[in-house]
């Protein structure tokens, strides 16, 4: 029942939220429902450890062989948890932001959450596709309704780009469907489908392009910085914190196990692309003057590493990816929260106009430094564990690739410290002269995040254990 609730609660509360007019009420309602979701997903983890079957199966489209099958495995647990943790934090952090027509805003946020939950939970390919789209639509509205001045064009680019991807994937889905012996979309049936190498590589690309756009991998990333820059920060947090993980999750759940040979065949190209992307994005990030864009590019770089680690196809790497999905989500949300606080206070994100904030807002400065250190994967922050494992996996794949990819660690230090220095250090600018400490809700959310970061950095083992079964399942399918 838990998986159903995970989808149902955000869905229903979202629909209800459409009809809430009063801003306070809308915020409260959203926060409440997201907290309930969080509680449930946490409960899910504990039950899970007692090895209870967390699957739900219902008839949906008998004539088409599609069923409403959802379930929680280790990987799903982690991502649902991320999804469930992210929302309350986001709502709390942006609690003071004022949106026109707040009911709709929070409704769409919750619907997005529901969609993503569905993606992480569905065990049926067609269902997966449904949620995949369902997550996209509200995000589209959020971005182009409440976004920046260039929002409409930018978000539309984002939408069409991803839409093309998902339509191509739909073809792939259908193709697989007709290859299954008993014409079914069920996970197992899809896993057992057998293709000729020609078909396999063809369908592989149909799927991969969709996921690569979502992640995004190097040549397909063009939608991302603009969208992150233009969207309202709350939405950006959802996009970069959780939705981006949909792509990676999908690769792990629907790509690696289904097309083992094609994955083998193309892993090299993809890893090379990812590594190029890492360096490329990092170098661009070094030159950024806009905080949001910088974070966007750094996020591209991190995602690139995850993708590379996936296609290295070994256990360590995959475990690293799984926990890093969570960690990256947490860290990047932390960075966005600060970005949001700064933008709200000064109405700008340009480093050139900021500076010396550490004198005015020491607490914010300290917390941001923690986030920044997590972003550069410093030991005893959560990101270190993930990146350590991922690089390890990549290393087992090839040492030179790892060495080149490692350069991004250095570059990450460069651009992150740039950001810290230009915002918080140095003399105060005209703008920051009469700044004061960040709002309490911002502080508290950041403190929570910081605690999570440190705790997971010092004692990551439980989460690593959580990934075991999923990884084994995936590894079993590889070769």
């Amino acid at each position: 029942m838990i998986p159903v609730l995970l989808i149902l609660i955000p869905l229903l509360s979202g629909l209800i939220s459409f009809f809430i007019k009063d801003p306070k009420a809308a915020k409260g309602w959203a926060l409440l429902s997201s907290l309930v979701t969080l509680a449930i997903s946490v409960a899910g983890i504990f039950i899970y450890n007692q090895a209870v079957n967390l699957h739900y199966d219902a008839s949906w489209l008998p004539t088409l062989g599609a069923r409403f099958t959802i379930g929680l495995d280790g990987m799903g647990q982690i991502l649902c948890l991320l999804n469930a943790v992210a929302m309350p934090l986001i709502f709390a952090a942006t609690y003071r932001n004022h949106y026109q027509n707040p009911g709709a805003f929070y409704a769409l946020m919750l619907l997005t959450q529901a969609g993503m939950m569905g993606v992480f939970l569905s065990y049926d390919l067609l269902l997966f596709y449904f949620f995949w789209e369902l997550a996209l639509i509200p995000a589209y509205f959020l971005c182009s309704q409440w976004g920046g001045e260039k929002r409409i064009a930018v978000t539309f680019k984002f939408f069409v780009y991803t839409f093309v991807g998902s339509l191509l994937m739909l073809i792939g889905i259908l193709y697989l469907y007709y290859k299954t012996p008993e014409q079914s979309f069920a996970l197992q049936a899809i896993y057992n489908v057998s293709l000729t190498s020609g078909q396999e590589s063809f369908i592989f690309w149909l799927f991969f392009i969709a996921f690569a756009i979502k992640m995004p991998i190097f040549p397909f990333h063009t939608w991302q910085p603009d969208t992150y820059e233009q969207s309202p920060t709350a939405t950006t947090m959802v996009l970069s914190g959780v939705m981006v993980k949909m792509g990676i999750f999908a690769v792990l759940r629907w790509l690696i196990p289904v097309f083992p040979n094609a994955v083998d065949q193309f892993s090299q190209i993809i890893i090379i692309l990812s590594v190029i992307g890492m360096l490329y994005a990092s170098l661009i990030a070094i030159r950024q003057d806009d905080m949001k864009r910088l974070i966007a590019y750094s996020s591209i770089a991190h995602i690139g590493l995850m993708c590379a680690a996936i296609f290295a196809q070994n256990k360590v790497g995959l475990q690293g990816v799984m926990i890093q999905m969570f960690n990256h989500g947490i860290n990047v949300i932390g960075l966005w929260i600060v970005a949001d606080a700064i933008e709200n206070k000064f109405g700008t994100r340009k480093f050139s106009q900021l500076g010396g904030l550490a004198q005015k807002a020491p607490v914010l400065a300290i917390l941001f430094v923690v986030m920044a250190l997590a972003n550069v994967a410093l030991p005893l922050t959560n990101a270190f564990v993930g990146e350590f494992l991922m690089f390890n996996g990549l290393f087992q794949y090839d040492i030179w690739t790892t060495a080149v990819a490692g350069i991004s660690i250095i570059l990450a230090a460069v651009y992150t410290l740039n950001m810290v220095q230009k915002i918080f250090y140095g003399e105060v600018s005209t703008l920051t002269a009469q700044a004061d400490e960040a709002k309490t809700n911002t502080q508290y959310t950041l403190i929570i995040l910081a605690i999570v970061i440190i705790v997971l950095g010092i004692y990551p083992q439980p989460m690593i254990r959580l990934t075991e079964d999923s990884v084994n399942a995936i590894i079993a399918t590889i070769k």
Partner: protein
Amino acid sequence: MNNLILLVPLLPFIGFLINGLFRKSLSRSMSGIIGSGVILAAFAISVVLFLHVKNNGGIVANYFDFINVEAFRIPFAFQIDQLSSLFLLIITGIGFLIHVYSTAYMHEEKPEHFARYFAYLNLFVFSMLLLVMGANFVIMFIGWEGVGLCSYLLIGYWFKNNNYNYAAKKAFVMNRIGDLGFLLAIFWILAKVGTATYVDVFAAIDQFSATELTGITMLLFVGAMGKSAQLPLYTWLPDAMAGPTPVSALIHAATMVTAGIYMIARSNIMYTIAPYTSEIVAIVGLATAIFAATIALKQNDIKKVLAYSTVSQLGYMFLGLGVGAYTGAVFHVMTHAFFKALLFLGAGSVIHAMHHEQDIRNMGGLKKHMPITHITFLLGCLAIAGVPPFSGFFSKDEILVGAYNSNPLFYYIGVAGALMTAFYMFRLYALTFLGKFRGTHEQQHHLHESPSAITIPLIVLAILSVVGGFLGIPAIFSENAHMLENFLDPIFAASNEYTTAHHLEHSTEWIMMGAVTLLIFIVIAFAWKKYSRRERFEKNTGIGKVLENKWYVDELYDSIIVKPLHAIGGFFKDVFEKSVVDGAVNGVGRMIQYSSRQVRLIQNGQVGSYILVMVLSLIVIILILREQTVIVSALRSLF
């Protein structure tokens, strides 16, 4: 015992937390007391541990699994053995002194910043302890990056000044370059033997092929380069002098920069089996020693001189490691910790008295104003210059002897470096303390001896750097009086088996020692004479100018690495991203728009043309269907 061990790093961490969290509410004295107190406690425990180790060998304390995956398991464990316990003493001991010193040195700071300073300092000690106590490379790496962070924070302590921030960033990034090497080495080890715990790795040493070992050791050494400021990654250290002087003393002289030596000493066995790497290590060390020394000859900033001398001394230590004189290296680490900390603190006391004047050309004649500082500083200079029987003499001598054993050329170059050291140290001493005062009047007016919180650590360190040498008396004076060697023997035993320890005859050693000592005295006298009466300074020209500008290395790096990277980044950001990546997508969009504008013109609203198209396409369809056999086969061949 485990808990006791755990306390060592934990205490500084607690200090960090208290000072960090309650910085607003703590008074200066409180945070000072807390900050130094925890270190003192840690020092006490370290002494206990040291004795325990001395009597009944090393211990490994396991706590919990940090990372445990199928491929490998990384426990969070500490290893207290001869080497680490020695380092514990150095770190906590000198650390304590410097904390005490800082309470006086930083008293001008606002309370909260004062607390922040101590928080950072404690955090540093914590990470440094992790570094040396860790029982595997990963824990070491954690400490490794931790100290990097702290040095970043402390260099940029006065964060209003952007130059300081740049220096801090430079330090962090350059360390990162090294860290990458270190990290890769760890991966390699894990991939090979599936563990990073020293004991297991060294036990499984023969599983490595020669090339692998070379590779791993090289990568480790890259890490050491970064952390211990060796060529080519040394440029951050002189800039790091932007930080408060006690920080320079603690981090950039006594402890952190020696992490590289610790690491290599730790994994000495691997280096012993990888002679090629050892060769590189020796050469790099030697080159650094000379190179830095030359620069130090012409520096006028009191701290810069000391910084370069540190680099050069570190070079000596690597030389020692490279030639297999591991004990010598560690010995030099220790003595260097003493006298270099002393010198820095002395310099700090001077700067403090001169109100943050650091240019030695504006000093002079401080002898009578601040006697204690003067005496201790002089002792420090003698120690570093290697004048018997001061500590530096023994340690440096041991390294040089080792160098001679492996390759006489190393020895001669090393000696040259030692002479330069003597020269620039006494140039510094003379210009600072001898002659007349060259500063402004109100500076002269305020000149005074520093408070006891500053002088006491100076005195303690002075004593240590005088007597410190006797821990390692070479064999020529008396057989196995070398306590340190005997103490550290378990660590280097394995390596020593490999190295055929052919000790050269005592006679030659005597001659060498005598000759060197004589030369050193000459150099000192020369420097003394040259600079003690110096009044005015003419501009440097020729080689002097080059040296003053540090061989223009920073400029070189800037133009061959930093600028190109920025250019590439800019190109990607402004050109490639916009025109290619984005351009492709938008181009498609624009193409569609354009074709839309064209296609809709076909719809010209005239029935005649509409029907014309219909008729023509009717004809086409008929033809296709009639010739379908041809067309279909053609398509087949196409697809």
